[in-house]
């Protein structure tokens, strides 16, 4: 018996030739037969990709005081959000290190929708229950939602054919309700690819019809189902952190270079905020950098980073960028070796390959949200 969970789209993936793998306790497609990682990646940058991300966790915070409660628990300033707005956040331990990274959507004045990483859903929920002033107002609603991401230059054109509505044409970080055959979809202008597009939250029973209709309606728009393999290379080209790689229980959001989403001085502060201020004042022990390999080869997670032949850090994520067509990596290095242009090396299975610190995002996406 398998203990892996399946999304409502499991059968749809098999029908499309999805190569299923275990990921974060779920059975998910890593790529699809006849397409493959590179084709799926390129389609997302050039036309439109369809992703099953139903494994992600959804947590709802509701009721009087919900805004103050959420703002005390997460790193960004949620008080700045209006109804239908969203922002990226880090959920922090009291020592400032990351429990998870997450998106917070304000659905209403007393209704906040938190979307967390699949592997961390139970850990996050337990943390929120422990830290909250009114834990009874926080519920894990992961079983009530499937999620489909529609990402790429043709995402708006595709969604307009299947579920037209207010979210189409909005800037990034908005969420609106769309109609789909009489039912409600939550349609957000967010994503994890760097492209313009949508993340659509729906009841599980609507996932299959929504997925099928998006695929059928988008044939002339170049729609392609995209597996977790290309989801990872797309986010890595943008330098977006992946929890467990660039961020974890021993690493803070500052080290992972998402300080723009950390507001320790916001009114009321947040759990972990004071520790983060102290950490920043004391100097960070390590810093995330982009690396480009100058020699041939492919950097991978956990390969040592060398300086003058001595191990000084490690690769957190690496691949051969399908867009830039060169080997790229994110890596932790000591702050004094993090300046752009710093010459380092990566130990690729015993061979020191030359690398240089470069800025990330590593590529320019194929589409952007309206401003």
């Amino acid at each position, binding site marked *: 018996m398998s203990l892996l969970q399946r999304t409502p789209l499991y059968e749809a993936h098999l029908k499309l030739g999805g190569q299923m793998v275990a990921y974060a306790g779920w059975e998910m497609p890593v*790529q699809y037969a006849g397409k493959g*990682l590179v084709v799926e990646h390129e389609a997302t940058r050039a036309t439109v990709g369809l992703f099953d991300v139903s494994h992600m966790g959804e947590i709802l915070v509701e009721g009087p005081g919900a805004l103050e409660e959420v703002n005390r628990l997460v790193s960004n300033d949620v008080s700045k959000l209006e109804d239908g707005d969203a922002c990226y956040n880090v959920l922090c331990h009291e020592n400032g290190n990351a429990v998870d990274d997450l998106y917070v959507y304000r659905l209403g004045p007393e209704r906040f929708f938190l979307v967390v990483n699949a592997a961390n859903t139970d850990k996050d929920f337990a943390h929120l229950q422990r830290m909250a002033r009114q834990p009874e107002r926080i519920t894990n609603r992961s079983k009530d939602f499937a999620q489909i991401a529609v990402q790429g230059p043709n995402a708006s054109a595709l969604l307009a054919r299947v579920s037209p509505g207010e979210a189409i044409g909005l800037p990034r970080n908005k969420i609106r309700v769309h109609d789909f055959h009489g039912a409600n979809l939550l349609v957000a202008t967010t994503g994890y690819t760097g492209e313009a597009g949508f993340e659509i939250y729906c009841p599980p029973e609507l996932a299959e019809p929504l997925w099928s209709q998006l695929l059928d309606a988008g044939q002339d728009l170049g729609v392609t189902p995209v597996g977790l393999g290309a989801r990872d290379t797309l986010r890595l080209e943008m330098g977006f952190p992946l929890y467990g790689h660039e961020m974890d229980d021993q690493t803070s959001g500052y080290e992972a270079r998402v300080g723009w989403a950390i507001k320790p001085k916001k009114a009321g502060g947040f759990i972990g905020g004071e520790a983060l201020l102290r950490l920043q004042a004391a100097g960070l022990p390590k810093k995330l950098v982009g690396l480009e390999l100058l020699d041939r080869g492919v950097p991978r997670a956990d390969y040592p980073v060398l300086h003058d032949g001595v191990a000084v850090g490690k690769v957190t994520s690496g691949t*051969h960028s399908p867009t830039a067509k060169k080997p790229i990596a994110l890596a932790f290095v000591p702050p004094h070796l993090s300046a752009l242009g710093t010459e380092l090396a990566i130990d690729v299975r015993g061979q020191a390959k030359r690398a240089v610190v470069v800025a990330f995002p590593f590529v320019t996406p194929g589409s952007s949200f309206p401003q």
Partner: protein
Amino acid sequence: MNIPANLRYTNDHEWAQDNGDGSYTVGVTDFAQDSLGGIVYVELAAEGTRVSAGQRFGTVESTKSVSELYAPISGVIAARNTDLDAAPDTVNSDPYGAWMVRIAAESSGEFEALMDASAYAAHTAG
């Protein structure tokens, strides 16, 4: 899945071709390239390197994974396909044309012991 009848095969999805002069040309199969996905880098041992059957002679890297290459036959690497340096993706498009190394063999017995096409077809079907 394309499995030419004139080649022999290993459990690890390399193919070998008998050149009739005591040397054998080696690459990876259609099954292997399909499993690996887009190949972005092929690293091969230098000419003159001595390899034993089953010993590593290089690596193939795709965007998602890295796989070792194992010599089907013992001998000395007489040539390596330097075209793959610039065009590793030809392993995907033409796995039996995109050869990797030519091995000058110590004996012919090891080639005969490799799987023939029908045995390899059964191996990949399992």
